[in-house]
């Protein structure tokens, strides 16, 4: 089992004809993902290495039965692309693009929640999602993940997500699904969405959660873990040494007014029973011990 995506997921790539879309779309297909379509209103009827291009997501869904979309469109077009995907009928949307204005994110997040409550958006500014051996949507290098289980991963940071997959693989530990929720202020999928899904997934026995400074998502996740999770969680939070008032790369990673510090997040997680590592390697070791004890 896995969460959100598996070998039956059929994906349309919005922006497959662009250089990034083509590169990662074809890599995802090579991995085994069912890449069934691409969209580009000016190139409908053409194909990208045999993948048919349609004018819109709605057409791609009608013709190919796509159930998910992956958006590789420059930031100015992401708002409309997300709405097009939801209106087109896919149920899972991955938005990789970074640099989307926060007001756009707030608008499409609330638009989806109201008019398309059964559509799950992942991102923007995220690496995507991989259910190793089954499906890889986004920019994660598939070979760094070991298929199987028993660990589920959820992370706010792209490269730290890869780091976690890699550390676990080194230790011979597999992953059911790895979700990169992204580092923006309004992520479509939250830690809690993933934790709840992992709690329900019978193959996932433990969860690795990677947070970073800014906002209060880790504190909210800690409360959820304390109240609703039976499965063990190991965690790492990046940015212990981050100075206040500075955005650390991600739009959402900022300590402001003494809020959003890594220390406060780690405290909240620890008091919810989460095993917290001080660096990614230590968190990986904690997870290995949890897995050994399952």
């Amino acid at each position: 089992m896995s969460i959100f995506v598996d070998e039956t997921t059929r994906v349309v790539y919005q922006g497959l004809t662009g250089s990034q879309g083509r590169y990662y779309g074809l890599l995802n297909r090579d991995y085994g993902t069912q890449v069934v379509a691409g969209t580009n209103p000016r190139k409908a009827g053409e194909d990208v290495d045999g993948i048919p291009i349609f004018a819109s997501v709605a057409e791609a869904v009608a013709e190919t039965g796509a159930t998910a979309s992956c958006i590789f469109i420059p930031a100015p077009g992401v708002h409309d692309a997300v709405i097009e995907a939801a209106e087109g009928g896919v149920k899972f949307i991955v938005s990789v693009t970074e640099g989307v204005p926060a007001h756009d994110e707030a608008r499409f997040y609330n638009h989806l929640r109201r008019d398309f409550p059964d559509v799950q958006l992942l991102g923007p500014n995220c690496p995507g999602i991989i259910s190793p051996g089954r499906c890889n949507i986004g920019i994660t290098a598939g070979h760094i993940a070991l298929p199987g289980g028993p660990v589920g991963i959820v992370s706010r940071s792209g490269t730290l997500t890869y780091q976690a997959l890699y550390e676990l693989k080194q230790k011979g530990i597999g992953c059911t699904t790895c979700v990169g929720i992204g580092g923006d202020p309004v992520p479509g999928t939250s830690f809690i969405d993933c934790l709840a899904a992992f709690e329900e997934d019978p193959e996932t026995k433990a969860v690795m959660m990677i947070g970073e400074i800014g906002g209060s998502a880790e504190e909210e996740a800690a409360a959820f873990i304390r109240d609703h999770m039976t499965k063990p969680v190991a965690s790492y939070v990046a940015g212990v040494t981050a100075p206040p008032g500075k955005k650390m790369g991600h739009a959402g990673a900022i300590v402001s007014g003494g809020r959003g510090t890594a220390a406060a997040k780690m405290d909240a997680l620890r008091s919810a029973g989460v095993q917290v590592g001080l660096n990614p390697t230590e968190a990986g070791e904690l997870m290995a011990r949890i897995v050994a004890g399952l």
Partner: protein
Amino acid sequence: MDLFEYQGKQFFAGYGMPVSPGEIAFTVDEAVAAAERLGTPVMVKAQVHAGGRGKAGGVKFAATVDDVRTHASAILGLDIKGHVVGRVWIEKASDIAEEYYASFTLDRSEKKHLGMLSVEGGVEIETVAEENPDAIAKVWIDPVDGLSESECRSWVAAAGLPDVAVDGTVDILLKLYTAYVEGDADMVEINPLILTPEGQVHVLDAKVTLDANSVFRHEDYAAFDETQSRDERETAAHKIGLQYVGLDGSVGVIANGAGLAMSTVDVISQVGGAAANFLDIGGGADVDTMAGALEVINNDPAVRSIFINIFGGITRGEVVANGIVEALERVTINSPIVIRLDGTNADEGRLILEPHFSGSLQMAPTMLEAAERAVGLTATEGTGA
């Protein structure tokens, strides 16, 4: 992007909000000339990207032009929390009957816009929130619906403003919300929003942070980008589009991905060192990006070793390796480099780098080991060695 108060007021005025007439001055003479044109009394206000200006002596009332000369001389060059005042805003002084607080920002937990209004203005809102939270009336706004006039009126009523201030405040808040949304602001704050003895509601201060991701639809924001407070290193990095934050240590950091860069800085600190910077070369980093990153770090005199931490996802290993090799050909790197490279095409990257390995360019298999070596090198290498 943080705006100076005067830029914030110009931004607000563009959306029809009432602000006082004023002029920006970079020298004492300019300040005096501005005051003569405006007519005294005026306020002389330091323009810095830092709070607590008043307490630091950066805001003064000037009854006469002589006062303007005195105060501008004192304020220009003043250090306010590490920010040296380079410009003062000379503004027609206002009579104040009451002071309020108003702001809009994104509530990341609720994923809605949050408006805050209080009759306790003129002090830091964090203090009000702690000591008298009931004095802040809050409204959560769905970004799809926006803020209607009737919602705005109930919100103002909930804040308990006097009747005379209601219409003027509703008008300003609706315009402030429009400025916040249409202007792609992360935060807009008026503190204080004042009621004059004549019953006018007026914007007396402006704090505005704009979303740098929105510049593609606001060409005029380029001017604001130029007035951001950055140190020399940050300016150089920003010029070539790097995500760089200057820190106080001696290990230069280059990593791909914000999380990994933060983590690299953390790990350096854990093994007893201190990073000189945070630098995320991001996805799709090419030869020029890596070379530029190395040059920026190489020009930092505090750097004594460099830790390049790359995990390939969107950034491929051979691209990173080629960038390093080419950068080494372009500039003489003053400090030894420790590289940790993994992920997509890492093996190809290692093959490209191997012929260049020496005492000043080495690889470590793990992040922790690389950090230890880089920190160790700061102790053995003199600057510029």
